[in-house]
């Protein structure tokens, strides 16, 4: 391929890619969370800044290949040589990255460094190869203690509760689906039964790893009803591709009814 043809190809690929991003040809699903807009705008800013430099850099490259790519003349020198150019690029890109980090820390902080609402609905989440199970505290508002030695999937005791000896666990409600009321703060506490997993709901803009041995909190508020996928995004074994659960965001009335039905099935 001649230098000119290659340059045109580079320019073409750059412009098509830029178009796809700007026109949101493949973009994120609808945001249903309170903190989502901060994260989405942070992503847009990052893509804008990095994208501008990307397009500029690629087009300059294409221009130089077009003009001098097939030349048999001695290569031309940038006035001043390569060193100032490299230093300039370093400073430019470095400043961009630092700026994005500082600005982006606000979005991060909104999710991870703000305390959950004191009235948030607490839900216990357990990830294990290869399913999620969820636990609600029940009318007494207390979660029973977990006893891993008592875990018995054959009798659906996924969490290892001891209702015989532990009164707090008797009204705990264990479900395979995560249902939450809309527009209410939710506090999830994540723990793993075995290896590392992750809790990811695209529409909620929430992703949190399960780290074996830790109880990790993550809080959010959902703003739209609907049914959304929770997928595992941390490779956890041969069933990882299949590991998922569903998040149902319901009206308060629907949620109360759902919880009552689940309690009756314990």
């Amino acid at each position, binding site marked *: 391929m001649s230098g000119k043809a290659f340059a045109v190809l580079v320019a073409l690929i750059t412009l098509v890619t830029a178009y796809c991003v700007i026109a949101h040809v493949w973009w994120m699903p609808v945001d249903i969370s309170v903190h989502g807009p901060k994260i989405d705008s942070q992503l847009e800013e990052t893509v804008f800044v990095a994208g501008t430099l990307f397009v500029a850099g690629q087009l300059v490259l294409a221009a130089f290949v077009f003009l001098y790519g097939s030349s048999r003349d001695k290569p031309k020198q940038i006035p001043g040589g390569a060193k100032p150019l490299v230093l300039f690029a370093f400073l430019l890109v470095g400043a961009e990255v630092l700026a994005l980090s500082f600005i982006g820390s606000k979005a991060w902080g909104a999710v991870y460094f703000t305390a959950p609402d004191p009235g948030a609905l607490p839900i216990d989440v357990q990830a294990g*190869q290869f399913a999620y199970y969820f636990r609600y505290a029940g009318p007494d508002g207390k979660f029973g203690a977990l006893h891993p030695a008592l875990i018995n999937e*054959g*009798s*659906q005791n996924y969490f290892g509760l001891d209702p015989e000896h532990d009164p707090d666990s008797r009204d705990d409600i264990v479900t395979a689906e995560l249902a939450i009321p809309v527009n209410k703060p939710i506090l999830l506490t994540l723990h793993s039964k075995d290896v590392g997993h992750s809790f990811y709901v695209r529409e909620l803009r929430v992703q949190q790893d399960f780290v074996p041995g830790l109880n990790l909190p993550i809080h959010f508020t959902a703003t739209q009803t609907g049914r959304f996928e929770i997928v595992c995004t941390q490779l956890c074994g041969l*069933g990882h591709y*299949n590991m*998922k659960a569903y998040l149902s965001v319901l009206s308060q009335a629907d949620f109360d009814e759902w919880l009552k039905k689940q309690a009756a099935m314990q």
Partner: protein
Amino acid sequence: MKVRFTPVGLLTGSIVLLCFSFVLAKPNHKVAASVGGQITGTVKLDRIAPKAKPIDMSKEPSCAQIHASKPATMESVVVGTRGGLANVFLYLSEGYTGNDAAPSQPATIEQRGCVYLPHVVAVNVGQKLVITNNDQTSHNIHPMPKPGGGNPEWNKSQLSGAAPIEVNYTGEEVAVPVKCNVHPWMRAFIAVVKGPHAVTDDTGAFKLDNVPPGTYTLTAWQETYGVQTSKVIVAPGKSANVDFTFKAK
């Protein structure tokens, strides 16, 4: 030397040959139906069964769909309409000394609708067990035998439509729990014994066939309520009747 065929010689020779034919003939391992007996009976639960817990299969939509109109339930206690206890495994725990070859017909267990069918499958030592996956999803079957019991622990993935898995169990064990590594609610049991055995249906009825006449201990095993035993004497060609009642705790 000239052999002389006298009438006495021929008669003696025939008798000798006849005796040899009895000695050399292959012994008939299968007890003729006219000689062996049967053990029949019913297994019941002493009260109304606890409510069967429904299984939420939402994490596996292709299977959840199959049970959309009627959710699958956990099968740790299955009681029929007349109080019959299903999935009880019966076998001769003492007194059986036969050395029958394992049946050539394999036992089967299938994965369908993300449950194991049947819930309790019985095999004789050395009999082949064939495992099939008839679901759209893949499974990972994981039998968990007793350590040191002669059966190795293994688990095997089976993609949708993959070839059946064939295994041979050599260690007697009542019973090997089976789970699926991908679908936590799936549960089955493989009982490995020598000799006649039976699994009850939801009428609680069972029948052990081809039982050599003798005195035995018949054991009934149920995954939640444990075991019960009964001494039984089987007469040639007759049917002995034994009933069991398990007590719910």
